[in-house]
């Protein structure tokens, strides 16, 4: 197990390094950072001064190396736009994105897993069809459109929910649903398929042959095995959701990291964008790593190697 974790960790670090290199080089091509930094009404002299001040005239590899070694110490440099340390800037917004992500994935899991299980127990039943309907809709619904429609219905027409802001948990209801619904179909389908698969397996028949009751069969013998792939998927989805929360954050005016990322791209705020891509990637990497560890713990075939 320890061996497994160490090797898995090594892979994670390698992936993180590669992603960092890609995101760095990718964004370095994103227009002249000095021009962006100087702002809309700056003169050429301003821009040239800034170019030298920030060292944009040095070779890219040097800049990458410097950036990376500082990033490893948690220093992502200073935002061109805010003139604040990027890490401070991000820390602040990340809590919103994380809250949203956790709420979203919880919503997705809490709806998808029970639905998937029930659908698997009663294939072709009404509830199975309903679950299928939900997932098909969810897959085809553009989330920005869904968000807008939610605002129109629940904020404008019914005036039940606030359309934006982060003050109370009520503010998080609509964003959570929009974001969670994005991840729900995949999780539900996997739960259903996994559960169907496990329920048809030999060891479930063994458990039944021992006289175990339906509940015991479902929850002790089946779910434990069916949930293993769902854990991985949920981790992946969580990573995607954080990276994909941009749309939701911009619709509901949540000042999270996703929105910051979008704005920063527009402002050519290189350090912030680089840091955000890296951090979102790190989240993905950490989540999948944790899910692998969790899987290993759930699945003795990996745990006891």
């Amino acid at each position: 197990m320890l061996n497994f974790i160490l090797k898995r960790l090594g892979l994670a670090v390698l992936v993180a390094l590669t992603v960092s290199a890609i995101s760095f080089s990718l964004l370095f091509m994103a227009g002249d950072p000095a021009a962006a930094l100087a702002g809309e009404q700056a003169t050429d002299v301003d821009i040239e001064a800034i170019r030298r001040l920030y060292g944009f005239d040095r070779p890219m590899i040097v800049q990458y190396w410097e950036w990376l070694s500082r990033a490893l110490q948690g220093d992502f440099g200073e935002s061109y736009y805010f003139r604040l340390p990027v890490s401070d800037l991000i820390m602040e917004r990340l809590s919103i994105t994380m809250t949203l992500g956790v709420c979203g994935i919880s919503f997705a899991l809490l709806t998808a897993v029970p639905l998937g299980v029930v659908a698997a127990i009663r294939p072709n039943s009404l509830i199975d069809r309903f679950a299928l309907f939900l997932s098909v809709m969810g897959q085809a619904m553009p989330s920005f459109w869904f968000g807008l429609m939610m605002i129109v219905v629940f904020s404008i027409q019914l005036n039940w929910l606030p359309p934006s802001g982060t003050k109370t948990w009520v503010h998080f209801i609509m964003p959570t649903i929009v974001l969670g619904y994005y991840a729900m179909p995949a999780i539900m389908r996997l739960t259903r398929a996994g559960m169907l698969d496990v329920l048809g397996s030999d060891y479930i028949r063994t458990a039944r042959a021992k006289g175990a009751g339906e509940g015991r069969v479902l929850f002790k013998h089946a779910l434990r095995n069916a949930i293993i792939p769902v854990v991985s998927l949920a981790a992946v989805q969580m990573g995607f959701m954080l990276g994909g929360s941009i749309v939701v954050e911009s619709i509901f005016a949540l000042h999270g990291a996703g929105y910051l990322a979008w704005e920063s791209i527009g402002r050519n705020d290189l350090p912030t964008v680089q840091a955000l891509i890296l951090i979102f990637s790190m989240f993905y990497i950490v989540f999948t790593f944790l899910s692998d560890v969790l899987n290993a713990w759930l699945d003795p075939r990996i745990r006891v190697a």
Partner: protein
Amino acid sequence: GKSDDTLNVAFTKELENVDSYFNSSREGVVMQRAVWDGLVYRDPVTNEYKGNLATSWEWIDDLTLEFKLREGVKFHNGEEFDADDVVYTVNYVADEKNGAKTQRNVNWMKSAEKVDKYTVRISLKKPFPAAIEFLSGPVSMYPNEYYAEAGPTGMGLKPVGTGPYKVTEVEPGKHFVLEKYEGYHDSPKGQPEIGKIDIRTIPDVNTQMAELFSGSLDLIWQVPADQAGKLATMDQFTVANESTMRIGYLTLDAAGRTGEKNPFTDVRVRRAVAHAVNREALVAALLKGKSKVISTACFPSQFGCFQDVASYDYDPEKAKALLAEAGYPDGFETDFYAYRDREYAEAISSFLNAVGIKTNFHMLQYSALRELRMKGGTPVSFQTWGSYSINDASAITSQFFKFGSLDDSRDEEVRDWLDVADSATDPEKRKEYYAKALTKIADQAYWVPMFSYNTNYVFTNEVSYTPTPDEVLRFVDMSWN
């Protein structure tokens, strides 16, 4: 709302830093006018200069201005305002190394020196006729002791000024809370009435309107014309429209920076472009409000903005004829760039398409487009310029026609005339030379000026406010009905 004496306002853009020397957005100007004061104040309606933190001023010579300061003014943190504050502020921002964001606003000042506690002199680098205009605008006074310690970052998070409102809460990106400053001095700005201003950043205009409908916002601004039109039909809101100093224009690559064979090097082609666009229709259908069609390369109210220049009416047939004359009977294909107001740009490009100039539309981020223009120019791009609300033609012409990287015409004659106009101290001489330059710009159709912008302010009927044409929200002028 009125009941809790709190005005809820939305900003579209997130402010990078509340410190007004370290942001460059409109929202920053709004904050600056509420939290800080300048030495001078220009009445937005009469355009008359009045003393604010200074009670009087005089030109000692072309390069020196002397101010008598108002006594008894206190900053929000209790620090007393005197000559030291002015000296510190001016010296700090004028120093290029400190990196004030918009150098143009401050780099005409060389330094400041204290004469006595309430007298101060500001020296200029070279003659700068618009000095008072700038001092009434972007240059505001900071508390020296506090600023020395906090710097721009600290100032951004906990701003301290002498203005009518003090900042009590800053959550970057989320919201600011302003509270009425009870000890506000007897300023020409007037005394604040509304107790508390809560400003939230909401990027999406639909969300802003939704919040407005649900009652959690009291005032939104910069509302697009169509929406404003609809909101105006609703009883519970007031929609006010004011013009702004921002103008939109097409800049054409007359200098051939994108290549010798560029069709826009031919004046007939440039004139054809000018004839091709139905600017009246654009204003009537898209911009609406107080927007106007313009023909000069500046905002009409600006000093020196000579109006009697060649103007090109909408005449697609003539445009086609000119194109044919220039050797393009079937039109040609060109890249068309824009960075904001996609709708307007799209409409313009569509007019060009109609006379045979086939446009490949590119919508870029400002920085990317700027880089492109600095490096090699663009054949044709839709641009806007707001002049920082500075009511002087130099704020626009000298930026674009003096061989800077954004100068697509590179006309030496124009440059020389503008040099004279910019530095002369005699207003009449300035006017004369601006007129010469602007006439040639129009005649050669280096630019195709399009229209001036306007801003829509929408607020609930509880709020009473009359906006001003300089596109600045003045909380101090607001009150409850």
